[in-house]
């Protein structure tokens, strides 16, 4: 087991001051559970490297390992001390950062919730929990606020790349407001012919101003932008 645990350490990129405490495959190899604990010389309240009991643990669903659903178990008291490592997550969200990145990438590509669940073998309820937390800003709070600049009401800052990405077509969102459909179409047409960064920024600011002005009517559109904003951040972090 010691040799295989070391291999999984490398596979998951688990390093000091953390290490794999245990790995368990369920009968039939349909699920893998991995416990991550403090490495030698580190302990919390004397618990040290002991595997935490279920009541002392937080469990995150991680990216599939060799096609099997993978669950990361960590001591509850250690949550928040892992940093942005891909196998970690937040207490209120059932997924690791790595899996969240996968989910957001698929959603950003327009894959439906049902299809994301099917592709990643996720329960729909967990995905809805994540979406709910995300839209309530809990995801941002858990990560210490808007890493790339944010403002009240969840509207990404005008400097954020998500606005330019919307105008150059790198990202798409479902728009329900006629005026916004027409505005984005016009700005995209202009963006194609504008190379000057200053002029492009004027167009970005125009779009941002529209969102500020109609913020109350654009809850769905803003939530999608925040998905893209989060996706962009997680890609940067991981």
């Amino acid at each position: 087991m010691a040799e295989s645990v070391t291999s999984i350490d490398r596979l998951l990129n688990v390093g000091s001051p953390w290490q794999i405490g245990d790995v368990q495959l369920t009968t039939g190899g349909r699920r893998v559970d991995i416990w991550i604990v403090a490495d030698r010389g580190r302990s919390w309240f004397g618990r040290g490297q002991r595997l935490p009991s279920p009541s002392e643990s937080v469990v995150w669903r991680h990216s599939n390992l060799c096609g099997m659903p993978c669950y990361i178990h960590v001591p509850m008291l250690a949550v928040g001390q892992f940093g942005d490592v891909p196998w970690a997550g937040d207490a209120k969200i059932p997924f690791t950062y790595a899996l969240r990145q996968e989910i957001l990438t698929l959603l950003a590509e327009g894959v439906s919730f049902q299809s994301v669940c099917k592709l990643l073998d996720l329960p729909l309820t967990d995905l809805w929990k994540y979406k709910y937390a995300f839209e309530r800003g809990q995801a941002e709070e858990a990560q210490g606020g808007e890493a790339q600049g944010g403002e009240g009401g969840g509207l990404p800052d005008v400097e954020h790349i998500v606005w330019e990405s919307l105008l150059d077509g790198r990202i798409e969102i479902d728009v329900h407001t006629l005026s916004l459909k027409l505005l984005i179409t016009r700005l995209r047409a202009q963006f194609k012919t504008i190379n000057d960064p200053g002029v492009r920024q004027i167009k970005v600011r125009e779009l941002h101003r529209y969102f500020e002005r109609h913020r109350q009517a654009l809850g769905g559109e803003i939530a999608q932008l925040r998905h893209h904003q989060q996706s962009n951040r997680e890609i940067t972090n991981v």
Partner: protein
Amino acid sequence: MFSGLLAPAEAATLLASGRSFSVAGDARLLEALPAGNWIGGSIPYFVTEQGGECSRDKVFLSEVPTFGKTPQIRFYARSDLPRIFLDAPENGFSLIIIPAFSQAHADFASNAPEYEDAFMKPLAGWVAGVHLDDLGKVAPVVANGQRKMLSDAAAVVMHVELPPEKSAHIDIVNLFRPGEGSVITFAETGFSAGDCLIDGRPGNLADHLLQTQADTRLPLVADYCGAHINVSIRSIDAAARRVEFYAPVFAGMEYRLAAPMGDYVEGFALAVPAGGHASSAVFSCNCILNYLHCGLEGRRVGALTGPATFGEVAYQLLNQTLVYMTVDG
């Protein structure tokens, strides 16, 4: 809120009451109406609760919700039109009526999307026309009720400020969908076109429509981030190899001829269910081409009533589309 077709005497009583209205009717009738808080445009075609109707003897009144305030009404000459969104109230809406075939019509059609603050504030309206028997003989007109003046050159606009808790929303009902045919793109924006790209290859639109025996009652349709926007075909000049449109095609946009449509009334009932949000509209207008091509005369088309016009405005000029506005909050 009153909305319906009235005899001129009945309309005059309502217009003199101090309430605000958008009025559609024959130019001769508009000229005779009393001063008041109203704007008007010439057109004898209407979609009423009883069905489509052509009348030179009645006017259609749509009451405008102003919440006790007096609306600002003014003419916009061609050179003033770029200010239209800037002049609109911060929270409110604007209704516009533009005389067909005027310079203001051409300018608004080609440039409205580029006006300062376009799409930031709600703008709805229509293009005034004439009875089809009078095409080329009589100029469409618009009316400023406060000044009791008509114009065949300038657009008339009513700016309405809303209380902070209210907001206006404009939407469209377009039953046309892009067909399976070729993708057509144009190098220049304009009311007519000849040479273009057809599926990426140089071609000529007039030749293409004639060769494919296209049904030119169907519009060209472009996808604006999910909103289907029509450009209706006015005529084909085979000798000059050019096609005239009722609204400009825009350079770079991808157009397809619309797919054939079934019965408009049945399609409309599915698209706009009775009792839905659209049924609370305070303003709506539909296109004269839908009235004609879809056989609306004498047929009921849901709860959305108003003039059947020579063009519709929802922020920019549209064709073969129903436009409606709601005030929520």
